Each structure stands twice: as C-alpha cells, then as structure tokens.
C-alpha cells in the first residue's frame, strides 16, 4: 500500500475512534440551517479526495477536523484544523502547478466559524441560518506549495422539510474573500510564471440539495454546487458546477455522509493543452469524493 493510500485509510480509521461530533450533515457540500442546542459539543472529521485534471497525475486529500459548541439554542461556534495531502506528477499548469509534488497529510490551516439560526425548519416551517468564518492557510490546496492565506467567508443556509421531515431541501448562497501570498520557489521550469505578489480574490457559492429518508437512519439524495471566482482585472475568472449523489446514515450518536461530486461544466481560464474545453481544471478537478463522520458527545 502506498503512503498516500495509507494516509486515507489511517484517517478513515481515526474518524471511527474520535470521541464524538457536530450538527448532522445530510449533505457533503451544501449545509442545512440547524444548529446545536445550547451546551452541546460535537466534533467531526471529513475527508475530500480531489482527482483528475485531465492530464498527468493529480490527487489530493483535504482533511478537516472540527469541534462545534452550542453557545445558545440559536448560536454555535466552531474551530477547525485543516490538513492536506497531495500527489501530482507529469502535469505542469503555468502559474498554478509548478511541478511534481508528493507528501502525506500536513497541517494546511485553521478556521474559526460561527453560525446563527434565524428560523427553525421544524418549528417555523422554513429554516434560515447565517454563517461567518475566518481561515488562515499555510499551503496552497491546489499545488501543495507554501503560501499565506487569510480568508473570510459568509453564507446563508435555507432549509425546508417536506413529508414531516422525510424529505429535506437545502439551499445555500455565500461569498468568500481571500488575501493570498505565495512563497517563492527555486528551480522553476524555464519561463514558468509563479507570481509572489499578494492577490485578492472574491468567489461566490450557490448550492442546493435534496435528501430523502428511504429507511430509518438512511438518507439518499443529490446536491449541486456552483462556484465562481472573480478578480479585478478580468471580472469572472473561473467557474465550475459540480453535482452528484449523496448517501447519509445517522445513528443516535454517530453519523456519516458520503458524496461523489463530478464537475459537469466549468469555464474561464484553461491550461495549455487542456482537452476538456467545458471544464474548469486550473484549480478544480473532474472528480471529488467526500466522506464526513460525526459523533455527538
């Protein structure tokens, strides 16, 4: 078993041994409007594998370990540790992927977040929450190279129950602003552009999902997420639409969610020689698999 796969297996098993977890996620990418009750603590662990840029070899795993706490019945706070593992070779993307890189899980950044529930989906018939988060990053999650990043993200989550909660709809809309500065790299390929000037980036996220409880504890559904990145000089720089099925299992204390996400369409900047004309593969990949594990204290 190679080191990369060992990391995935070890982390999957680590997830099983965590003492306990967060507000139950029926989806892998879009979020619901519910929050933790006052005084409750939850933790969760999630892994995302991103793979296939249409050329060479590219595979990365993002790990997120999160602890949440319900301050009041409407307000929760959370802290996260993010890690990154990457394995890429035979793939150069000017300005973005400067060369081969391979390492196991390393700390990538930390994040602090808060979520406020305005309306409860079960009590008020329509749920609405807002989140805000601050993140500090040390590694570029696309190339695996070193960089400093400060990020602020805010989002609204809507949620509606149908059929007494057997069917759940979720809708999200959010905006993210980031300040990024890459570290210089020695021995870059000839003529390779690797800007180390500070950059500001703004991106938006719009997503929705539908999940149906087909058996006690089991939910099956689908979700879709559109992300767009904007820059001062070019306006809309890149965009992508991912969609896929999601499977959720919840027990009294544990829950798990598995989502397969495939990029359906994308646009904007492309790398030289990119074969897939209608995908965004500069920073995104064709496929993502995400597993989330939760345990309630």
């Amino acid at each position, binding site marked *: 078993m190679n080191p990369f796969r060992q990391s995935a297996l070890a982390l999957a098993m680590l997830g099983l041994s965590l003492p306990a977890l967060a507000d139950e996620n029926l989806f892998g990418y879009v979020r619901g409007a519910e929050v933790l009750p006052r005084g409750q603590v939850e933790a969760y662990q999630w892994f995302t594998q991103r793979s296939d840029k249409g050329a060479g070899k590219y595979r990365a795993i993002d790990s997120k370990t999160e602890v949440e706490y319900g301050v009041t019945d409407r307000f929760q706070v959370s802290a996260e540790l993010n890690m990154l593992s990457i394995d890429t070779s035979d793939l150069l993307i000017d300005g973005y992927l400067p060369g081969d890189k391979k390492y196991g899980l390393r700390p990538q950044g930390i994040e602090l977040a808060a979520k406020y529930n305005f309306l409860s989906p079960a009590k008020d018939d329509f749920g609405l929450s807002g989140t805000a988060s601050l993140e500090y990053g040390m590694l570029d999650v696309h190339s695996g190279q070193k960089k400093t990043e400060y990020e602020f993200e805010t989002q609204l989550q809507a949620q509606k129950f149908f*059929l007494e909660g057997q069917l759940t709809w979720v809708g999200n809309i959010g905006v993210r602003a980031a300040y990024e500065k890459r570290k210089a790299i020695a021995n870059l390929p000839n003529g390779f552009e690797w800007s180390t000037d500070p950059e500001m980036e703004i991106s938006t996220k719009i997503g929705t999902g539908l999940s149906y409880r087909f058996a006690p504890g089991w939910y099956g559904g689908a979700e879709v997420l559109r992300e767009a990145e904007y820059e001062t000089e070019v306006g809309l720089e890149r965009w992508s639409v991912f969609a896929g099925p999601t499977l959720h299992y919840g027990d009294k204390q544990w829950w798990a969610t598995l989502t397969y996400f495939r990029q359906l369409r994308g646009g904007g900047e492309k790398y030289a020689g990119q074969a897939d004309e209608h995908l965004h593969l500069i920073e995104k990949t064709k496929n993502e698999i995400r597993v989330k594990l939760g345990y309630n204290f």
Partner: protein
Amino acid sequence: MTRSPHDWRLFLLPMAALASSAHAADYLTVAQAQVLLFPAAKDFADQTLKFDDAQRNRIKAAAGVRQRTAEQKVWRAERDGQLLGWFIVDEVIGKHEFITYAMAISPDGHVLGVEILSYRETHGGQVRDASWRKHFAGKTLADRFKLDEDVPNISGATLSCRNVMDGVKRLLVVHKLFLAKA
C-alpha cells in the same frame, strides 16, 4: 491519470462500520403503556382501524399531516363493559428512526395522556419526561397545536417535538372521524 479501483472502498469503510452500530431504545411495551394510561381499565379490546385512500385523504385534510399507514393500532379501554377511552399506538418520523408513542383519548375526544415507547434520537430524550408530556393532557381539536405555544419545543429535537405534536393532533382527528361514534 491512473486511478486505483480501491479508492472508494477506503471511503466506504467508516460508513459500513457506523451502520453496523445501529441500536434501538424501547422504553415501554404496549401492555405497560396501557396500564400507565388507563390504570382503571380491565379490558383492552383490539379495534385496529384500516383506512382506504379516501379515508387517509380525509385525515390529512383535517389534520394537516399525512396518515402514513393504512392501518392504525387502536384498543378500546373498558371497565365492566363501560368505555373509558381509546388507546392508540402510533409512529412518527424522528431525525433517524421512527418515534413510537401511545396516546389515550377520552370518549369525548380530549387527550388523557401520552407515553413514549421508543425514542432513539441524538437529542431530545426529554420527550419521555412527564414534565413535557403533561402539556398534551386535555388537548382537543379546538387547540392550535403550535410548537412553543401549546407544547414547548426541546432544543435539538425540534423535528421530533413537532412530529409527535402533529401526530397527537392527527390521532384526535382519527378519533373524531372513526371512533367517536363507535
């Protein structure tokens, strides 16, 4: 790019392990709940109701929520041939599992009491507490059945509270339509 066919299996491992850890939590049997809700009764006569689609639609129209099943377990509680009320066992949707509860209705259609038989959710175990269940006593179809007004909400278990409350209202509708003149 090369991709291992084993990648998916790694991600499925935790879910498979979790699914195998499912458990149930049954607190009362039907017989125990019958004694708690009708301590004076000597006989419980099975009077299970079976609904056709039209009847289920009538229940939904009056109660505002679905009558999910075509069969409703009902017992006639009696003492020396005198009707004391109706004992009904029902299931409503919880976050993960069904919540099984029993309800006692008086002959004139008000709630005598509610007992929780099974509750398996992460939060909201307080639905089993007498201090929460007492809010149903005396309720009739004249009440609004609004969460946090008629019945208090339990944080973290809002869906469970809402569905039990709506279930109680639905059973009062069932009583009015099919049992009140029985």
